[in-house]
């Protein structure tokens, strides 16, 4: 990588402004095309048959009657998706999740699929498929699943990470541990100790757009996939591997995306649609219903967490420990491990230990959800931190400031921190007018901190300059939160031209080199780095063309404010050449002008936020109302501040829903009882106040403009901030998320 990513400290013209979003008009007029908006001539309708059982052996599947139904063009089972994963356990789990092989592992697990001429025929065909199940005992609760008496999901799983190799299989796939120091010694120094157990229920990312795709496999073995995804290159790799195709023969085009938040980072229905198309010889459109989205696609973990924190009278934390049990669905994950890494990351601790347990349950495969695993850990830790501050008699903000991690602190997950922003967010919160606003009866205020890692990754970008001087920017990171606007600003900044001259698009997988998906808050961080690099390469060509025009050495040409300038007194009579002028003459100076970049963007830098929340609780009904909410977070550099604020607000809004209402509710039969937005209630506009934001800009030293990722950290503090607010409002410590009215009432009544 011949690119220097270090922060340059430059000033900006375009970056930091708030132009109109380029995708806005299409989105508000309905012209924007999402996953289900694409159609191909002769396409069939795909539908998936799903297990009604939480846990069952599949003895036999008889598809003969369905195949004979007029209008049915293909029926597939796991036999049509043979195991081509070559020992790749993670891919095998994805394959088994796409189509159950020997066992249905949760209510909603796919067992067969059909492609038919219309939806009615497809639904009829599903009813004609006969599946002979042997129903098995199931377990959906994370604590129950850890018991020795619990039904086993997979008798080939033996817990990893134990000192002694286990002799019996278990639903616990792995134990992990982080920390340093001596917690026994640390607790011995404590004057106050708080010890609590917490639970959080499983939630869905709640993306409004369901999973949707159109797959078309040609008889020559090439294929096209139009799909709603966070990473079309990753989907191409997954699908190619699972279907035994060469990646280059599968072209994947990403649609607009109506939310992903981690739930669209690996394939669900796409290999099924491709397999149906391959068998039917026609394009197949497969769109999940909302019921399917809830029952069979990416929820987050349900958790059970024990926390113990000790501190001296002066407010110094002396020891902290947590045991975190996270549900993974039926497949191994590293969700508790991430919780164990992030739990105490905000604090400077001499003695800390966290232990994580990954637990299999008969629920859908756990997927990433915006800073995955961190919000639940933060809920438990920040609740205990608040309670400890109260016991000591310290202000909760002052207590956190006293113990906040800083440059040089050894993080609870291992490495020593470089420059970090937890202190500034706490100071900003302390000085924010929100902290001093008066509260009324039955109202409470809470605050909490949150941490997330942020990632970079493989990135490839093309920048093409048209003969009219307009600029096309082709990027490979799906735009989930406004990156096309941000990247256009970056291209305009680097080239020294107007934002309106740049048009950014997300290119398909045949048009660009590989790009990692948009996750880990990496979209703008990574692709802006690649855009800067591509623009600088284009500028080199622009200078070369100007040098040719003037017949002078390229080293005598500089690029300033969108113009080539011949430097030195000897060129005093040469008028500067604009980008437009150089582009117009490009046909005669060497052909098209473009800049290309492929790089690995690393060094995204960790991120911190502090949130403040005011809540009013009705003590008669337990219902809650969020009165005021403030987010303070470090963005490094806000490229398009409106989008950054949108990310902060979006994370807070999702966190508010998670904290107060959202949960998967399972019946005794192991079936999901609320797979729809009527019974699984996400916040709507009338539930939310205007969420106030404060952007801090502490430059990331590993990005030329100082940019950090901003998309995920904002969902980490809300569970805890709201729990602290409710606890302060009702005078009872809330330990179970969501704090729905029945839970709040039960907590109040238990205290009476």
């Amino acid at each position, binding site marked *: *990588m*011949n690119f220097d990513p270090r922060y340059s400290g430059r000033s900006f013209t375009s970056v930091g402004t708030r132009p109109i979003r380029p995708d806005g008009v299409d989105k508000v007029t309905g012209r924007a095309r999402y996953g289900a908006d694409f159609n191909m001539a002769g396409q069939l309708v795909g539908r998936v048959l799903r297990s009604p059982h939480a846990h069952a052996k599949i003895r036999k599947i008889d598809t003969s009657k369905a195949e004979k139904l007029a209008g049915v063009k293909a029926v597939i089972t796991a036999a049509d998706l043979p195991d081509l994963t070559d020992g790749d356990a993670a891919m095998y789990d994805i394959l088994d999740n796409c189509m159950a092989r020997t066992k249905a592992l949760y209510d909603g697990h796919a067992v067969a699929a059909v492609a038919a001429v219309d939806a009615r025929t497809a639904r009829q065909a599903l009813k004609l498929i006969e599946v002979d199940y042997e129903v098995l005992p199931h377990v959906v609760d994370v604590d129950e699943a850890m018991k020795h008496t619990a039904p086993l999901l997979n008798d080939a799983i033996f817990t*990893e*990470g134990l000192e002694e190799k286990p002799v019996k299989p278990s639903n616990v796939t*792995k134990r*992990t*541990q*982080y920390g340093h120091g001596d917690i026994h010694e640390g607790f011995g120094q404590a004057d106050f100790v708080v010890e609590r157990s917490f639970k959080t229920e499983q939630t869905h*990312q709640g993306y409004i757009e369901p999973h949707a795709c159109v797959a078309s496999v040609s008889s020559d073995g090439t294929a096209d996939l139009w799909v709603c995804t966070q990473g079309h290159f990753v989907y191409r790799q997954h699908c190619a591997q699972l279907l035994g195709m060469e990646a280059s023969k599968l072209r994947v085009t990403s649609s607009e995306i109506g939310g992903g*938040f*981690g739930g669209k*980072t690996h394939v669900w229905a796409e290999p099924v649609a491709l397999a149906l198309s391959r068998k039917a010889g026609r394009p197949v459109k497969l769109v999940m219903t909302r019921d399917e989205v809830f029952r069979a696609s990416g929820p987050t973990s349900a958790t059970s967490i024990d926390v113990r924190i000790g501190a001296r009278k002066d407010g110094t934390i002396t020891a902290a420990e947590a045991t975190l049990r996270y549900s993974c669905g039926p497949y191994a994950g*590293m969700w508790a*491990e*991430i919780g164990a*890494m992030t739990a105490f990351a905000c604090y400077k601790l001499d003695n800390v230990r966290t232990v994580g347990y990954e637990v299999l349950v008969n629920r859908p495969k756990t997927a*990433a*959800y*915006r*800073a*995955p695993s961190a919000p639940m850990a933060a809920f438990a830790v920040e609740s205990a931190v608040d309670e400890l501050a109260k016991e000591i008699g310290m202000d909760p903000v002052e207590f956190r400031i006293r113990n906040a991690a800083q440059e040089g602190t050894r*993080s609870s*997950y*291992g*490495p*020593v*921190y*470089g420059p970090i922003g937890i202190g500034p967010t706490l100071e900003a919160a302390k000085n924010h007018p929100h902290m001093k606003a008066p509260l009324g009866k039955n109202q409470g205020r809470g605050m909490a901190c949150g941490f997330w*890692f*942020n*990632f*970079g*990754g*493989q990135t490839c970008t093309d920048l093409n300059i048209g003969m009219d001087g307009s600029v096309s920017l082709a990027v490979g990171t799906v735009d989930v939160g406004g990156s096309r606007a941000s990247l256009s600003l970056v291209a305009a900044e680097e080239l020294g031209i107007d934002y309106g001259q740049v048009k950014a698009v997300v290119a398909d997988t045949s048009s660009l080199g590989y790009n990692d998906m948009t*996750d*880990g*808050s*990496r979209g703008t961080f990574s692709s802006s780095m690649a855009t800067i690099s591509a623009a600088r390469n284009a500028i080199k060509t622009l200078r070369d063309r100007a040098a040719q025009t003037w017949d002078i050495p390229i080293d005598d040409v500089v690029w300033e404010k969108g113009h080539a300038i011949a430097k030195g007194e000897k060129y005093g009579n040469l008028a500067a050449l604009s980008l437009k002028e150089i582009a117009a003459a490009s046909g005669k100076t060497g052909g098209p002008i473009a800049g290309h970049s492929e790089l*690995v963007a*690393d*060094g*995204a*830098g*960790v991120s911190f936020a502090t949130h403040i929340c005011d809540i009013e609780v009705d003590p008669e009904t337990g219902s809650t109302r969020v009165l005021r909410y403030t987010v303070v977070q470090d963005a490094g550099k806000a490229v398009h501040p409106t989008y950054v604020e949108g990310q902060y607000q979006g994370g807070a809004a999702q966190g508010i829903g998670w904290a107060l209402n959202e949960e998967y509710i399972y019946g005794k039969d192991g079936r999901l009882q609320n797979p729809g937005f009527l019974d699984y209630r996400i916040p709507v506009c009338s539930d939310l106040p205007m969420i106030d934001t404060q952007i801090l800009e502490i430059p990331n030293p*590993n990005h030329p403009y100082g940019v950090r990722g901003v998309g*995920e950290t904002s969902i980490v503090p809300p569970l805890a901030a709201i729990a602290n607010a409710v606890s302060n409002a009702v005078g009872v410590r809330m330990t179970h998320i969501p704090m729905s009215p029945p839970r709040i009432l039960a907590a109040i009544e238990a205290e009476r």
Partner: protein
Amino acid sequence: MMPKSAQRFSDKHHGPNEGLALMVEVTLWGSLGALAGGKSKVEIEAKDIRELFRKLAEQYPGLEPLIEKGIAVAIDGTIYRDTWSKELPQGAEIFLLPRLAGG
């Protein structure tokens, strides 16, 4: 015989870093240590992440599958997941971490 991954890591492209290999202390996270004979810290002579991974795979074959799957390296607190040409500065804290998922 050179391990499979070591062969893959030993290509000649070192990016901008052509400096001398230094002895660096590498801290391993819990479950990784178990695969390195129970050690939580190991000393490796390496100038960049590529050489670090190659020598770790040579000296501790139990680590090879995890290196293949992906390991992140924190250098003075900054996490690198894919930049194998990243130089390991003298006296820097080198910490191996699991490769994490984002949302």
